[in-house]
């Protein structure tokens, strides 16, 4: 990982924030290289939005330092604001203006000039599949359309760094995939993305690096792959028709964990085809009939549970 600050789009050092007695961020450090997607993952109330608000100059940190686009958020907020686009958890669009008017409002505030502003607005509306809805007010939009308009508004100024605060929370799976495609396109264009999410799959799908935020502290950071390697490997789950078959299987396969009630067996595996084939071959040798088989590879959910030590992280939703 390059550690030179000149290649970092965002760095945070010892970031702290409390609201009254309640400490929300308790010394956060991270660094996001240019042109990558960094995902801050955590349950509701972990402090994700507070981090975004500090980095987007909306909130003063109590301690620590943050630099965005090479500028200190506390000392040069306007330079930071000029470099960023922000899309919040709750779509900040003007409901009394049409989609197009919302875009032109942003263009005017970026002083793009009438023609360039209109061209840019039309471009983004087309890119985000909002051309037909452009003359309508956002009140008539679906949740996904609102979120797309919100993001499009944040991109009018051609920001190099984009903050996406839970961009797909509350969206249906189709809109979520559309949003993912848009995010990937942005990064392909060289934009740095800072993404917060409570969906493990989203971080896994999109992020180059993931940091797990829990109760105001980063409990782990790394690539999705690195994090997955930090938890016990995956397993094959085999289901049998009766207790006798299960009994035979237990004797055949080493290291398997049995569940007598469900008549299933968990066999550790690294998830490779070879290891899977070895398991099946041994069952085949004994002519054992298997009722069902499922392969479980470790995902970020396992990582989260392993690192926070809380199996009941009910607030983290697995998608």
């Amino acid at each position, binding site marked *: 990982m390059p550690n030179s600050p000149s290649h970092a789009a965002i760095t945070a050092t010892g970031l702290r924030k409390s609201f009254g007695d309640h400490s929300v961020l308790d010394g956060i450090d991270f660094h996001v290289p240019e042109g990558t997607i960094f995902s801050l993952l955590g349950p509701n109330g972990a402090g994700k939005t507070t981090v975004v608000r500090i980095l987007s100059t*909306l909130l003063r940190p109590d301690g620590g330092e943050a630099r965005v686009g090479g500028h200190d958020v506390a000392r040069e*907020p306007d330079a930071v604001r000029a470099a960023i686009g922000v899309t919040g958890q709750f779509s*900040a669009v003007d409901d009394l203006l049409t989609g197009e008017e919302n875009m032109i409002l942003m263009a005017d505030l970026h002083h793009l000039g009438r023609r360039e502003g209109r061209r840019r607005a039309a471009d983004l509306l087309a890119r985000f599949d909002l051309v037909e809805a452009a003359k309508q007010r956002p009140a008539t939009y679906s949740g996904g359309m609102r979120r797309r308009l919100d993001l499009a508004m944040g991109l009018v100024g051609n920001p190099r760094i984009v903050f996406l605060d839970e961009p797909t929370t509350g969206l249906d799976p189709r809109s979520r995939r559309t949003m993912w495609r848009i995010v990937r396109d942005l990064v392909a264009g060289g934009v740095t993305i800072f993404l917060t999410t409570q969906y493990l799959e989203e971080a896994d799908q999109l992020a180059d690096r993931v940091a797990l935020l829990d109760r105001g502290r980063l409990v782990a950071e790394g690539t999705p792959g690195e994090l997955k390697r930090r938890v016990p490997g995956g397993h094959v789950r085999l289901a049998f028709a009766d207790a006798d078959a299960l009994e035979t299987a237990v004797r055949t396969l080493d290291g398997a964990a049995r569940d007598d009630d469900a008549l299933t067996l968990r066999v550790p595996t690294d998830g490779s085809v070879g290891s899977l084939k070895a398991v099946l071959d041994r069952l085949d040798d004994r002519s054992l009939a298997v009722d069902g088989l499922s392969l479980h590879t470790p995902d970020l959910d396992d990582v989260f549970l392993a690192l926070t030590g809380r199996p009941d992280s009910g607030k983290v939703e697995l998608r």
Partner: protein
Amino acid sequence: MNFLTLWANDSATMLRRNLRHIRRYPSLTLLLVGTPVVILLLFVYVFGGTLGAGLGGVSGGRAAYVDYVAPGIILLTVAGAVQGTAITVAMDTADGIIARFRSMAISRASVLTGHVLSSMIQCMLSVAIVVVVALLVGFRPTTGPAEWVGAIGIIAMVAWALTWLTVALGLVTKSVEAASNLPQPLILLPFFGSGFVPTDSMPTGLRWFAEYQPFTPIVETLRGLLLGTAIGDSALLSVAWCAAITLIGFVWARALYDRDLVR
């Protein structure tokens, strides 16, 4: 772009946005203009005959009361119109669009400037409509163009002061509903002054309040400019009150707007 150009550009953009809001949300303007018109008609046609007789003087009656109450109704219009400011500011805060503006490299003052300017325009148009209705029901100002200009100046000054105050009220509330309730007392103030009846007809405690509250010197100044009654030190008191309210509203609104924000 220097500070002033940036401020002027962005304020113009914000003003266009807010004026568009006024056009897209006509029911609010209708309510803001409708209320003083209804009160005007109520006071002229229902109470006017009796109240006019109580005014004393030569003519008396309904015709005299129209002249007496019109300046009070004009101020009531201003006090009512600025409620729209609190509502639109609170709507912007609730929508999160103010947070969006604050995270952009725009003139920070422009968001509030846009609200204040559009609110001034809405307010002065509302007053114009109410004045026309007052003229239609018999309001007969007796003074010349110079006094009219002075009267418009006083109205604009009051609108300016109350708009800054209601911008702050819109920012301090947590919901749009609260923002529409908070400035309500402003509407009542003209009643507890010399807006509708002379203060010397009131019981002692109320009379004391009526004589010292800001709307009374403002009404007296307006009445003097439009109808030629004595103004005395009311003009000076009006200016002082408006300056004080503007200062408080401005400082308060700026502090609320900048709250938590990285400088």
